[in-house]
């Protein structure tokens, strides 16, 4: 076991990991941050997307030790300081951009990364950007509406 340290949602954290410990396992099992989901575990579905140093990555396909020292942001870090939903999260709720909710953490993290790079994406750009995030309930339309609604407005702080 090796000691690993990083910053998660603005707070310094550390814990013991094996070589094979995935970032998503460290977040969920090590830190108890179970908002990040494991869907396919093969980097297809995007339920596990988190930001590492501001960039979206699939945390099921990153070793915890490989991102030691990085700044990680998860769905738990997307709410406003007072605990209320961030703009993007609120838009998902307003547009019913989720049904079972399983893909939602990854959808929100991927969408937040898009809006950070491109504050006013077209619908086509939103759909293209989310091609690595799979939803099996809503059929994407409401998710795209939520992202478009949130665009151009302040997104939860990066």
């Amino acid at each position, binding site marked *: 076991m*090796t000691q690993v340290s990083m910053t998660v949602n603005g707070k310094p954290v550390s814990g013991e990991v*094996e*070589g*094979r410990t995935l970032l998503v396992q460290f977040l969920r099992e090590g830190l108890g941050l179970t908002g990040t989901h494991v869907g396919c*575990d*093969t*980097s297809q579905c*995007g339920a596990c*997307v988190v930001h*590492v140093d501001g*960039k*979206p*990555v*699939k945390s099921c*396909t*990153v*070793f915890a*030790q*490989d991102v*030691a020292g990085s700044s990680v942001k998860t769905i738990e870090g997307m709410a406003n300081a007072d605990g209320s939903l961030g703009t993007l999260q609120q838009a998902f709720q307003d547009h019913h951009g989720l049904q079972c909710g399983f893909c939602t953490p990854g959808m929100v993290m*991927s969408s937040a*990364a*898009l809006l950070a790079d491109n504050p006013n994406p077209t619908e086509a750009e939103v759909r293209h*950007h989310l*091609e*690595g*995030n799979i939803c099996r309930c809503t059929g994407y339309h409401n998710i795209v509406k939520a992202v478009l609604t949130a665009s151009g407005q302040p997104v939860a702080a990066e």
Partner: protein
Amino acid sequence: MFDFEFVKPSSIVEAARLLGGEGAQALSGGQTLMPTMKQRLAAPSVLVSLTGIAEMKGLSVAAGTLTVGAATPHAVVAAEAARVFPALAALAGGIGDPAVRNRGTIGGSIANNDPSACYPAAVLASGATVVTSKRRIAADDFFQGMFSTALEEGEFVTSVAFPIPEKAAYVKFNQPASRFALTGVFVAKFAGGVRVAVTGASNNGVFRWAEAEAALAKSFTADALQGLGVDDSDMITDLHGTAAYRANLVKVLTGRAVSAAG
């Protein structure tokens, strides 16, 4: 996944020493190797991460050559090569999805030499030089068949040096689920000739289409391909497409790439 010792050197020299050890395996972005390890198809005892080596990251341009550090993620190539080598940037920006592009690297892609990967087509069509921890290898000598390269035990790619073509384009026909190339063609026109490299089609991995290169050297137009046939005897047949289908795609996509290159 079986456990292993994880090490993350900060220099090429240190990485080369670590990769000389028994059971050691290089790890770049991990977007292929990690799923492979989860399936226990690979079980290294030591995993040597190459993503902490600053001298293997980033792009530089000198004397008509674009050099890309092997540990540079696709997203960085997509953004930073856009002005100097737009066809390469477009290829990098079409690999996988945004999250995969933030981890996957050019070095990892060509070292794996997946028969449907995009980067080998760019490297071969550009006549690039693959720089490794030991030597410099011409692209024509580097790719040696499906999942096979000239890399020796313990040797790893450190950068790729691309001669910048006058005109170039990459066109791929996506396999819609994986976004790998069902077939992809990279066409590059230089002062001294044209190179055409095809990925996704052959059982032997990326290859050059010599007849098209000769025809395009005379006339760099899609019409120049009329009358050329593509031999489908060694093309891939799978549930996504037959050998004949892929052979047809090679010709169609080459024409589209020539038109796109302008």
